[in-house]
């Protein structure tokens, strides 16, 4: 476990906060988080009016009956938590992590962490209880952080994100099924992953969560520069998650790979959307704000 007072860690946490705040400010301007249309509210209690309370919820009947200015507090008929699932499998490390903490600007893992941090900050700002689950990865203190509200909770989440680094294999399907079993209640769910597993192994699990009433989206992280295979020469390619190496001449497979990658993305998108899951594609070097708008809107 990293030291609480580790200067580098503190700086990283602060950086995450800054990024999240900057981006979530942009998202918050004129934007309300949409709730599901079938989400209902109910009377919770009445309170004596004090200056600052929202006058839209004044109980006029009570005023007429008792000549007292009373404000009604309402709550949703169900508790609607927000959970973010972050895939930190070893494949997410490409783009510049080199085994250490991922670069927040150039690696897929760094992009994913920045997206998650921003989402958490935004949801917290709106008073939503937020939780975080890591799929694969290492370095963090808690793999699953249940949804809670509060500033301290956000600090905890940011700390985990600052400590996390990619490692291992995701086994995304298994992780999502486990998530679905753990929380039977509907929630707001965002899965941030590169999806580098057979789509048929994990899309149905995500679809099942959506089918139970959850508001589900997937932020699909990829590295366009990596997929472009822009080098003139070849290389011995290997997956950080293990497996055999493959010798390729980029000029020979570039075109075919581009077609295969495009086909894969279309397969994932079609599979998710057919199950009511929103699909947001995010290039490492692309606009983070645009991705977040697509994911949170």
């Amino acid at each position: 476990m990293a030291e609480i007072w580790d200067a580098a860690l503190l700086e990283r946490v602060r950086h995450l906060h800054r990024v999240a705040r900057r981006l979530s400010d942009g998202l918050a301007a004129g934007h309300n988080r949409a709730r599901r249309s079938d989400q209902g509210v109910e009377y919770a209690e009445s309170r004596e009016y004090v200056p600052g309370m929202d006058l839209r919820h004044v109980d006029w009947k009570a005023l007429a009956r008792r000549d007292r200015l009373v404000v009604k507090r309402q709550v949703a008929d169900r508790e609607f938590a927000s959970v973010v699932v972050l895939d930190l499998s070893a494949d997410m490390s490409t783009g510049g992590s080199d085994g250490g903490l991922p670069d927040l600007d150039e690696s897929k893992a760094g992009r994913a962490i920045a997206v998650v941090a921003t989402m958490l900050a935004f949801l917290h700002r709106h008073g939503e209880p937020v939780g975080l689950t890591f799929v694969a990865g290492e370095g963090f203190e808690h793999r699953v952080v249940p949804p809670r509200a509060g500033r301290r909770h956000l600090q905890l989440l940011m700390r985990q994100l600052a400590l996390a680094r990619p490692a291992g294999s995701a086994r995304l399907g298994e992780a999502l099924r486990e998530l679905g079993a753990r929380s039977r209640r509907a929630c707001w769910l965002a899965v941030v992953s590169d999806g580098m597993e057979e789509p048929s192994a994990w899309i149905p699990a995500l679809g099942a969560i959506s089918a139970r009433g959850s508001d589900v989206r997937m932020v699909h992280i990829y590295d366009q520069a990596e997929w472009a295979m822009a080098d003139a020469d070849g290389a011995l390619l290997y997956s950080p998650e293990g497996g055999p190496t493959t010798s390729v001449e980029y000029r020979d497979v570039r075109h075919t790979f581009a077609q295969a990658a495009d086909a894969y993305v279309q397969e994932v998108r079609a599979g998710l959307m057919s199950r009511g899951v929103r699909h947001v594609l995010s290039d490492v070097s692309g606009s983070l704000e645009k991705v977040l708008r697509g994911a949170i809107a």
Partner: protein
Amino acid sequence: MSLSFGAPAVLALAALLALPWLAHLTRIQRKNRRAFGAMFVLRRIESDARRHRRVDDRWLMVLRMMMVGCVVGAGAAPVFRVPDPDPDVGRSDRVVVVVDRSLSMAWTDGSQSTFERAKSQAREVVGALPDGVNVAVLAFDDRVDGTSEGWLADAARAQDAIDALQQGWGASDLRLALLEARRMLADGPGEILVFSDESGPEILRDAADQVERIVAEGHALIPFAIGGRRDNVAVVSVDVTEGVDGARAAIGLRNFGQVAREVRCTVAVGGGRVIPLFANAAPRSKVELVASLPRDVDGEVGWVECEPDGLSADDVRAFALPQSSSAHVLIVDGDAGDTPVGAESHFVERAVESWGDARTTIVSPESWADTSLDNVTSVVLANVATPPTVEQFLPFVQRGGTLWVAMGSEVVPERFNAALGPLLPATLGVPGILAARDERGRPIVPHGGRNAADFLSPTLRAGLQSVRNHRQVDATPVEGAISLAHAADGGLALAVVRVGAGHVWLWTSTLDHAWSNLPLESVFVPLIHRILGAGRAAPVQLVRAGSSVHVPLENVHEDVRVRSGDETLSFQRTDRGVRWRPPTPGVYTIETRAGEIVARAGAHVVDGESDLLAEGSMAKIERSFESTRLTRSTPLATPLLGLALLLGLAQALMARQTRPS
């Protein structure tokens, strides 16, 4: 040029060239290892990625393959050969110098003929021979002549012998020359130096067997091809045809060169008359010019002369002018008939009338004795019962007159044989019926051959084939007579014999349509013109310049001489004529001492020497029998090994540079 290998079996090791290719294809890829976050997608196309396996470091592989190739090539001991433009001469102690003096060598570029260049080069080569080498000099065209002294030990004398060689007019018989050279070297190997333009369509092909034998016998055959590009136009033929409208000369010109030529020609027809002609001759093609000959040409030698080029001898050609001219024809009509067309003389008279300048006198046999033969050019005895005697006709014929004897029902063969036997070309027999009157008659078969062609042109011979005889007198040709046609059953129909300067013709059928349809056929008029025009001029023979020719002189017993213009040439008198060698193309006359021309000859150059294009070369033929002949060889093994070493260094440097970091 050629490439040969001393150890060709080593070339099988060329399979080793595949080794660098295989090594580069299969070797462990020394590429950079790189983490790739989308291996999942890559594995979906992994079979495609593997299929495009490439040869690594292509240029390095090429260098290595070239290095292997050079080593293998060097092992095969390659030798590169090119024709040696300057072969060594004088390696043996006997050298035969063969100089081509044929007509084609007379071509000149204005400064020097090919023959002179050949002699000059031969002198130079002989002068450079080492001491002690014996030299023989041969010159050839269609015959081979050697220096009378045989082998010459002194180079200066050999050079003198070369200088003494004269241009010939004959065709090239290189085969004969090489045969003679081999004969001279029969008792040991030597060198044969041939100075020739090697031109002519078949000269080399004909000589190939001699070249093969020379190579087999171990002699060195060193050709010196002298010629270069030479464009030539030649007069290759003149054909004279006769018709009712007169005679025509068809002049064949051939352009043997490689550029188109506009050619101006003149046709001289005697009496100072010249007909100009023009022709455009495309490269390597023949063109024909036609000249209409005047009616009154006098049976002399015609002369075609075209604008001279490098080889002027073949720009001229003689031809025999048709021997028809103004004539006075005396017809002795033995059967005047009851009607004009029934007269023997009717058709002949009509035919002579179509002549430009001729007249006929018709007499009966009874009034013959009162008739003078002065100013008469031809006499026709048509169906005469009692012919005049030899004594009456002999002087007339000998001085150039024509006597034409035709048969009929009045003729008594025995009387003719008795009266005119010595003059007649055949002894007459009994008349015979060949076919009934209502039948078509026996067709006439004209004779071919050179003698017949002197009297009857191809047109006349073709026309005679339409003639059919129902009756004719049997006749047996005498010695010296020329049979010109016979009837289909073999009986003589037409014959001629020379008597002095004149001729006696015999037609064994009639000159009216009683026994034959001759007067009714289109050939009758030109035949009349030919027969009755012949004899006024001396016969013309076309001969070849440079060759020994024989001109027959029938019934000429005086001393004669052969002249060309004012020059008298040496000749040999034979039993039947004269023999001599026309030195140049031109017109020659055979005259009596009194100046009377008894024969004419037109000499032109030999055919076949005008094509100056050399098709192939003697050196190439020699190399076909032994590939090392007349070549300069360069062994390539050492240079290839040096190149292999350089390539090895280069590939080592490149391998270091391309090693991945």
